[in-house]
């Protein structure tokens, strides 16, 4: 199953959950997450995320 993973820390972006603490609503597709959003665990940017098979 492919997931979007922060390669700097391993946090997984789940579109069904979003990131409410950063006002990214549940159901937000990855492409709709703002470019200046940061990984909530480590602070890395969107460009540090990759699709990974888990």
């Amino acid at each position, binding site marked *: 199953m492919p997931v979007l993973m922060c*390669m700097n*820390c391993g946090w997984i972006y789940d579109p069904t959950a979003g990131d409410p603490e950063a006002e990214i609503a549940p159901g937000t597709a990855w492409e709709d997450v703002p470019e200046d959003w940061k990984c*909530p665990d*480590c*602070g890395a940017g969107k460009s*540090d995320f990759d699709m990974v098979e888990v």
Partner: protein
Amino acid sequence: MDDRLNWGDAFDPYPKLAELRRQAPVVEAEYRTVFGMSPDVTRPEGRRTFMALGYHEVREALTHPEIYSNTFYNNNVLPTFGRSLTVMDAPEHMGFRKIFQKAFLPHVVSQWSEGLVQPVVDELIGKFEKRGTAELVSEFTMIYPFEIIFRQLQMPREDVQVFKNLGASLTSFAVDPSKGREASVKLGRYFEALIEARRKDPGDDLISLLVQAEVDGEALPVEVLVGFLRQLLNAAGDTTYRSTSGLLVALLDHPDQLELLRNDRSLVPSAIEELLRWDGPVGLQGRLVMQDTTLGGVDIPKGSIVEVMAMAADRDETMFPDPDKFDITRKIGAARHFAFSSGPHLCIGQHLARVEMTRAINALLDRLPNLRKDPDKPQPESRGIWMRYPDHIHVKFDPKG
């Protein structure tokens, strides 16, 4: 005992921390003074020190490295671990971090669960499961995460005991830095030789993987790889042995929670997260303030030290309802605990720690029926500030068969 002088032995520091936090989320104080500990001999003199205690203030200090710098660790971690990730700031930090994190991503470490972690857990429990009694620190928690590291590195068996002794000396930072530096030199020589051997004849172990890694087209500097390997013992061993011990103490002290977990293993992930929040193994981080700033309404001048009290933030009642209650059914919401820190220096090994603790607690519950504290022996108590852990966990159980 050196360890207790270094890490502290406070039984329940949480009420004092809560009292301070209710005064203000940031206070000018040093935790070692607050808790009557011997001074940290590596701290430079003349610097003002502030304790960050509130959830938001701890998060801010950990997620703004441009203000709150890891060069705080230059006086203790740098002379002992060497040039490890802990002492780095941007821009070099992230490039090196990603290399090491790649080896510990969740889908990578999950592959070690069955073939590497479970056999270690099984072998250790097999030695006492028929006895009906055990001391779970010396017979289990203090051994298993280190054994996993030694197997990851494919360390020669004859080197293991010396390695353990040197690793223990490395972290007596606050009380005996000379012992730490001596161990650092010896471990450095050992690792350099091992790295060279694996470069010439690579295998499928962690060191072989890392010597082949590159940052911007160049091999990892040897001193960075050696620094990482020195730190691995503390970062992967000391921490997980203590968190596993802490989980066992918490469950034994809350037999209703232990029974709930025994009967519903789907609660294992939340039990692990709740222990990490409620009584995690690492109580705080240190940061050096690089510019005049304000945190929690308190002005902090450049050059000050901030003691980022993760253990205080993890019981902040504004973020965690009924924070002093150990509840393995607590929902993991927006409030994340700081047991693995936060921000750029977030623990690289957190996913492996969860795999190890999961395997350990499941196996202990499976194989030690009616696990309970041994009433005839000293009772287990988690103690400490910088790190928290019990010295022993004497238990009884009903051997199977």
